[in-house]
């Protein structure tokens, strides 16, 4: 279907940059339009984060469904898409997770060409360190799971870790470092760029991105969704997909659904920018601490959840204290660096730590949620699978296990073995 609006797509390249710079950068067009809502769309995606925009993009580009709107209560990309630590990896343990996240990682690897947008996908490696023999055994099991599924994994011994990361403390009495499991293709991407890149690409194919359009109700007739009540009026919809990380329970409740989800806070931190210190993404098994360095030079780090249901988006001090202690214990050079900013995102924590991409008990209503703190790396994969599920009204094999029913059936996908304690996942 041809776009209703004049083509307003700027192709980005170094030549285009040169041309625009000569014109004083006055020729750039909007990366995405700001249209008025239409009365009805074939598909409306609720949530203008990375997942929702990616879903819209793949609905249009893969399935040819272009009469699509993405509704977002604020500006796009300011929920968890804009509040994460930008890590991309597929180093999971359980086969269904590995398959899904690996597919997502492969999409990441081609995203710049797909979107004509530099999302700064940077595969500098993701290294998970272990501190005890049992953690090592678990890492070996995981690494082998990955290799069996065709995913890259390398086991590093203590000396290899020391050579790679000369600045970390190898010999903490309680957390000695015995080695690590490296995924060389892991790394980071620029979180905002992913949102903007998908928004721009979806917009190019005619998707309407409706910002400042908050959903206040889901209208159903005889068990089938027919549209959405929003702050910009009623919007009719053939199908509705929910992709509202952090608020999934709230949206689902509008349709009368009660989900196995709790919303929790995850804090993240960035330091002042420094010259390159840390190459890969490092994850410490002990003390829940992970760290990477952004292209801009800031050290980006985080840890465990704040640990109680919250929609506040502001983190609390106990976690800060614990995390800074863990950080300096593992990377002593952090001590004299300064933390610049802290923020928090709302995580939909599920009862087994794994997400949902599935149909719901309401015809035409689809759910993408429960990403815990793994949502960012899933962005293209979740969008792709969600688009497939919506377009075909059945899950793709990649997301066939990611249903709510798995809890009725006892098919939990519990990587950590924590059980139904979302606050501890």
């Amino acid at each position, binding site marked *: 279907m041809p776009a209703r609006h004049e083509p307003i797509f700027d192709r980005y390249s170094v030549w285009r*940059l040169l041309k625009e710079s000569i014109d004083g950068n006055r020729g750039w067009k909007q990366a995405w339009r700001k249209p008025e809502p239409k009365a009805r769309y074939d598909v409306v995606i609720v949530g203008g984060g990375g997942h929702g925009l990616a879903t819209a993009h793949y609905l249009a580009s893969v399935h040819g469904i272009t009469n699509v709107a993405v509704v977002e209560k604020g500006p796009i990309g300011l929920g968890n898409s804009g509040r994460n630590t930008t890590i991309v990896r597929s180093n999971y343990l359980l086969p269904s997770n590995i398959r899904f996240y690996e597919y997502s990682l492969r999409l990441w690897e081609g995203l710049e060409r797909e979107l004509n947008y530099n999302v*700064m996908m940077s595969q500098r490696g993701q290294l998970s360190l272990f501190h005890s023999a049992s953690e090592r055994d678990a890492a070996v099991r995981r690494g082998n799971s990955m290799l069996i599924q065709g995913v890259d994994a390398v086991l590093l011994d203590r000396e290899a870790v020391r050579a790679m990361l000369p600045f970390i403390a190898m010999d903490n009495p309680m957390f000695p470092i015995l080695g690590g499991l490296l995924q060389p293709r892991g790394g980071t991407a620029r979180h905002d760029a992913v949102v903007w890149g998908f928004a721009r690409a979806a917009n190019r194919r005619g998707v309407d991105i409706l910002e400042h359009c908050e959903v206040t109700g889901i209208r159903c007739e005889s068990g089938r969704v027919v549209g959405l009540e929003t702050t910009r009026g009623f919007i009719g919809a053939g199908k509705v997909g929910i992709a509202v990380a952090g608020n999934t329970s709230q949206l689902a409740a509008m349709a009368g659904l009660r989900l196995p989800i709790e919303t929790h806070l995850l804090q993240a931190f960035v330091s002042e920018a420094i010259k390159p210190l840390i190459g890969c993404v490092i994850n410490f098994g002990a003390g829940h601490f992970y760290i990477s360095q952004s292209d801009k030079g800031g050290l980006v780090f985080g840890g465990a959840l704040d640990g109680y249901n919250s929609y506040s988006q502001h983190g609390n001090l106990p976690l800060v*204290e614990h995390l800074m202690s863990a950080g300096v214990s593992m990377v002593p*050079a952090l001590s004299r660096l300064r*933390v610049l900013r802290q923020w928090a995102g709302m995580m939909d924590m599920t009862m087994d730590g794994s997400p949902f991409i599935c149909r719901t008990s309401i015809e035409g209503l689809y759910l993408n949620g429960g990403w815990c703190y793994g949502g960012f790396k899933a962005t293209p994969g979740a969008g792709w699978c969600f688009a497939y599920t919506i377009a075909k009204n059945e899950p793709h094999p990649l997301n066939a296990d990611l249903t709510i029913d798995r809890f009725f059936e006892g098919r939990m996908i519990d990587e950590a*073995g924590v059980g139904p304690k979302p606050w501890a996942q």
Partner: protein
Amino acid sequence: MSAHRRLQGGHIDRCKRLTFHFDGRRLFGHPGDTLASALLASGIRVVGRSFKYHRPRGIMTAGPDEPSALVELRVGSRTEPNTKMTEVELYEGLQARSQNRWPSLKFDLMAVSGLFGNMISCGFYYKTFMWPASFWERFYEPLIRHAAGLGRATCLPDPDHYEAVHAHCDVLIVGSGPAGLAAARVAGEAGARVILCERDFLPGGGLLLDPAQEIWRKEMITALERIPDVQILLRTNVFGYYDHNLLGGVEQVSDHVPEPRPHAVRQRYRTFRARHVVLATGASERLIAFRGNDRPGVMMAGAALTYVHRFGIAPGKRAVVFTNNDSAYATAFALAAAGLDGVVLADVRRESRLAAKLRAHDVDVRLGVEVNGFGTDAVTLEAQSGGRNTVRADLLCVSGGWNPNVDLASQSGAKLTWDAALATFIPGAPAQAERSVGAAHGISGIGEAARDGLAAGLVAAKISGFGGGCLDFPLPALDGSCASIEPLWEVKTSGKAFVDLQHDVTANDIRQAHREGFSHIEHAKRYTTHSMATDQGKLGGLLGAAILAEARGETLEKVGLPTFRPYTKPAAIGALAGGATGKRFQPVRRTALHAWHLHNGAVMKPTGPWLRPFYYSAAAETGWAAVLREARGVRQSVGICDVSTLGKIDLQGPDAATFLDRLYINSLSPVAVGKCRYGLMLREDGIAFDDGTISRLDRDHFLVTTTTANAEAVLEHMEFYAQTVWPELDVSLCSVTDQWAQIAVAGPRSGMTLANAVEGLDLSNAAFGFMSVGEGRVAAIPVRVFRISFSGELAYEIAVPSRHALTVWQTILTAGQEFGIVPYGLEAMDLMRIEKGHVAGSELNGQTTAADLGMDRMMKSTGDFIGRVLSARPALADPSRPRLVGIRPIESGMPLRCGAHLMSKLGSGTSLGWITSVTQSIVLGHWIGLAMLENGVAMNGNTVYAVSHLHDETIEVVVSSPNHVDPENVRGRS
């Protein structure tokens, strides 16, 4: 060179001279100086290079809002990159280096990037570096990473110490300007516990800029020092406002000395729990955008005033002051009074009540005039009525108005409201018990601020229960000034006009962001990186928003500001860790026999909070040889092991047996007094949780053991069900983990050993069979004896009150001497339990059911227990799930590897299971393992491949029962 710039007065000690080094140059200053003031006094103009364009930059401010004057401070392991020189208190021997320049500050080759200025406008990196794809990680990104970043970090560990201090008070006051001092005094004199935090090293805030207020300032501080319940914390920045009136701060205890005194910390992390908070955080001056507004020589007007009055420095030789409000008149006046020639004040307003007064002091006041450019030692002035001229000046002081420092108020949950008269945002209604006062609340004038602070202090004290504060101290006279400002954000000309100096964001970047659709303030911020630098946008944050508002054609009020988040200024990570690092990161738990283990060659292994003997190593013995020797000693004769870390829970009450029946999958109420039983408990979702033994000490008295790892979790779980789910059950729970040390004595000669040591208990098989519990004495110490076995051998565990553990341990060692008793550690214990097929943490990993572990037959068929219902869900009850099996290599010399996967054929993409535990069996003489294998029981006797791709290893293994040794348990019962 420096002398001619020093003036009279100020808060510096001219009697003492301090030597310091900047970029290798030896320079001088005085106590009371900051690095910035000392450099200004030394005539240093260019102090840094900018992030993107590498433009030369000078000192803009006199405080934490400094965007440009950043240095690498100190050397070696004490290196601190990105330090704002406006905040560094000068000390003898200070060393600082400029950063982000190559090869030198004067001649920075990276400045060529300025030539491509238009090409590297906001967001350029999203639009290029995409071809060819493989070049990103290899070429483009390393280049960007190298060019980005500011200072260099040291890789060396920090030699300094830190600590945390937790304080409580009735009134916490942040900021010691006139409002803060007045609030502190009135609340303190009313009797409230007051803490006053000042980030600076001198108290007084704005009072320090007005010599006329010096008497009042000193008097207030003297008065405050006399009130015992008022604590003044200098050099203490409050960085964040958290829930329930908890605030966090960092005190820079030793940053003003070459290195911390012995036993002193460098910085102190502080928390404040306050009943009421008074935010007297002052205001920050904002920049105006015009061509060249980033050049060395541009300085905020308030900062210039600070350098004159506080530091006694003339920050230039010829000055132009550019303002849109009254406040900068004081700067012009001060500069003129300091003897600068030809001070010009350019006021964008057409009228000013202060103009005549200033003209009387030889200041050339020009109304209705804007600065439209700053070049080398020349300011271009343009009258609104037309006409342009150039004034020679090396100092251009700028005031675009003042923004209340609202970050803490905003963090506390207060909404910000637009104040049109001030053209800025001020804090709205409080969400927690706090109030903003003085300049932080948009109030100008010292007398006015003091009165506002006093009123807030009174209220705060009263809310905390302290009425009737003493009000009889004088306050500074009212200034009578009103905020007379004519908002001017930008003087539009060609050339770069900056809104964020550190990140090199220009007004044009903001407009470009808007054109590209990044029109929301958060989008514009992220797209341009505006106000994301280390000055947190204090200087140009609102300015950028104003330019965005103009581009959008909307009001600034509507555009708003990005969210304020911690930290109000960047905080050292080491400080926030508060010293709880390294070996102090996590509490360490030691058993009563810890010292004995250490003195007897134990290699200790951390397990959860505990340190436990891994094995005991004789001099030349390798670790694994020691483990084999220990296990062999147990299997052949007798060994002794410290198992004190097992969780131990004492249960008493008439319903204790009923309670246990509901906790465990098996029946425990039939256990007789003096007997014990193995038990497995599930989580409510049907997954195995923990195992242990349950001993009945009396009819209504049980002792339960848990695994070491789950001791805390199991007690909490029990308390949850006892208190909230079945409160009708009369049962009391108490941890006795610490009360009892526990000693395992295992091996065929354990009975004989104990017969030598234990008195008062018949240990014969007839009297004290397998799974018996009894009381006896060892070395006259009453002990409890359990006949239980983890190794599968005849074995006992002796529980002893922990202070007597050493006596009992040594008595048993002596008793076993004739049998060659051997102490053994965790690894030998693990070896033997794998031989025996007992599960441990790698099998009880939160993913397995009772059936997976082969324990489904233990489940009672009737009666409620936790996990019963959900363990019957179809996928959990599926018999093809991976189940616990034993494995051994076909080729008996081959070792096994934990984490290897089991496959039915080579090259298969399907894993049938994985190896959970492996060891070298001393009974069988080859490697054995435990594994989880699909259809495990049916696979018994089959051959599968154990594959570790990580190690490029494949070996064939035979599936067996997990009980590799003594499946009938003859040894344990004999």
